[in-house]
């Protein structure tokens, strides 16, 4: 008798563990097959990836440095996803943030750093927010689905960047894909030399994370967003300003993405380059999906994803494999989580 009543209790945490690890095991299996398919040695790939992400202090710091913009974007997406919105336009919102940051730097090039840097962040957040708001306006007033509106705006943002880099903001005498002229040193967010990570940027992303966490958990506004995401019609009937709140979610997510764009320019590249977003916007969508839209999970998941992205970089030189392997693993992992979740729902 006793054993039958204990067994389910024992097996419940075990079940949970199995359900959590199953997608990871499946994803690793699929990745293994893909690696074998191209004739690469799996163990060497694993070793290089671990070294690439955690091999020395500089690389470990680089993972943290990549974690910052990824976390900022993922956290922003929690707002739009909570309201049931697919803000695919986040990629363009990062780009606009970077453009905004560069515009501020170009306008006040000789301002001292303590004045200039906050201004740069503010400008980037505003530019990103404006681009997010635009996707929202197209959705709310224009009836254009945010996936298509946002996607179109992404391509427009990239076109705008290229125009600026090759046109009005080109380096004197030569316009190249290497980007605009480097920022003056007073526009660099200080890093812990020789590491490329900025403590201020890490702090910024943690603060934003906390703000979003608490506003989604403990405020009326967070509840209103949830109501909209759950059922927009009943939210409207309950008297919630659905349109205004959706626009706000878009704009605030855009602001977070804009900050990520500012980090990309003031910490990582110190200039505006054509691929300034590094694809962190799309990647953040995966992070947000994997976190099931819970802020506490965003930080660790973004860390794993940042490590995967950076870990696969040396593969190109050392094993002649394309560095997109990191992206493949990330994609397979999220896909497996969705599939295992589906099975769970079915069994119930």
């Amino acid at each position, binding site marked *: 008798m006793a054993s039958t009543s204990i067994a389910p209790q024992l097996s419940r945490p075990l079940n949970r563990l199995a359900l959590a690890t199953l997608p990871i095991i499946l994803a690793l299996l699929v990745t293994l097959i*893909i690696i074998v*398919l*191209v004739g690469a040695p799996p163990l060497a790939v694993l070793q290089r990836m671990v070294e690439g992400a955690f091999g020395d202090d500089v690389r470990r710091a680089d993972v943290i440095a990549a974690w910052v913009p990824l976390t900022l974007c993922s956290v922003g997406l929690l707002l739009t996803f909570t309201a049931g919105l*697919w803000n*695919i336009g986040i990629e363009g919102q990062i780009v606009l943030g970077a453009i905004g940051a560069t515009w501020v730097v170009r306008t006040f090039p000789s301002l001292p750093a303590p004045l200039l840097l906050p201004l740069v962040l503010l400008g980037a957040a505003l530019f990103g927010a404006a681009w997010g708001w635009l996707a929202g306006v*197209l959705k709310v007033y*224009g*009836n*254009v*689905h945010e*996936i*298509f*509106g946002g*996607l*179109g*705006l*992404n*391509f*427009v943002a*990239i*076109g*705008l960047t*290229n*125009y600026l880099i*090759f*046109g009005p903001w080109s380096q004197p005498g030569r316009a190249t894909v290497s980007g605009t002229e480097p920022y003056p040193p007073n526009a660099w967010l200080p890093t812990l030399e020789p590491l490329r990570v900025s403590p201020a940027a890490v702090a910024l992303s943690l603060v934003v994370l906390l703000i979003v966490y608490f506003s989604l958990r403990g405020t009326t506004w967070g509840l209103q967003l949830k109501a909209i995401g759950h059922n927009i019609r009943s939210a409207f009937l309950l008297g919630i300003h659905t349109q205004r709140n959706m626009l706000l979610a878009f704009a605030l997510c855009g602001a977070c993405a804009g900050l990520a764009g500012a980090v990309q320019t003031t910490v990582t590249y110190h200039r505006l380059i054509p691929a300034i977003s590094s694809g962190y916007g*799309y*990647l953040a*969508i*995966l992070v947000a*999906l994997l976190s099931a839209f819970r802020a506490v999970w965003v930080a660790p998941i973004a860390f794993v994803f940042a490590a995967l992205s950076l870990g696969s970089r040396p593969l190109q030189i050392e094993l*002649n*494999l*394309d560095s*997109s*392997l990191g*992206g*493949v693993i*990330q*994609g*397979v992992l*999220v*896909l497996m989580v*969705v*599939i295992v*979740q*589906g*099975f769970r*729902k*079915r069994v119930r």
Partner: protein
Amino acid sequence: MDTLIRLLASIVADSSPLVFAVIGETISEKAGVINLSLDGSLMLAAMVGFAAAYTTGDLTIGFIAAMIVGALVALLVAFAGITLKQDQVAVGFILTLLCTDLSSFLGTPFVRVPGPQVTPSPIPMLSEVPVIGPILFNQNLVTYLSFITIVVAWSFMFKTQQGLMLQGVGERPEAAFARGASVQRLRYLYTLLGGALVGFGGAAFSLSVKLGWSYHHTQGFGWIALAIVIFGGWHPVRAAFGAYLFGALQTLGSNLQSEFTSVPIQLFQVAPFALMILVLLITNNAGLDRLLAYLPRDVARIIDRIIRGRAPVALGTNFQQE
């Protein structure tokens, strides 16, 4: 005149990959399933199609391999969406990124390798007909197949019993089920069929129109195709028309680009996407109703039918088969 004919002929040929893709997606969505993965699956299919044709030296194998890839990606969408009842948009988006990265990772050995291509095969007699001949019948097999696909898709959808059932499954699955249709099975079937067509479109890119393989070879076209399906109002002929219109605008753009060198080149690169937003804005806007109300009723109805389509009612939703 000759230049115009040549221009039109090249538009017809260059649009053929998109024609396959938009008709494929129209079929899936008509059955109620959104395959959002197009930008990735089109690209992966283009890569695999080229790689298969390159390694075997056989174009047919290339096209078949691409269709299998397209169908497999669609199978994942169908399995996760229909059987496991997960969010189709989420699964599609994940697959978009995954297939894009997979095409880069697996396609490395084939980057900028000169490979096989579909050669022109003018149809005797027909290609001699003035004007129409050189535009429509002095093409390659892939382009002819795109014409046939349009006609077959239209007649299947609107003129056959199965076609009506396909629409029923996407519009009112409960009613279709009550009339004896196996909703889930039909949705699987048409999602896979649509995916295979998308895959064929991918191979049409790499083997016929945008030859070879390079990183992110067809980036953007999948999203354009998804937008054209909306623009086409989920009607295969209108969707195909949308694909040709897009092809024409692209050709026009590249010609204008060489004409007006003072205009920044980025404007032309961005134009298709700005246009996409604009078109969706016009076709979906409620303000249009207010404008149409000023027109005579018959005229308004015709305009409404031309520029506006209605999404299948059950698009993207789950159906619980009892």
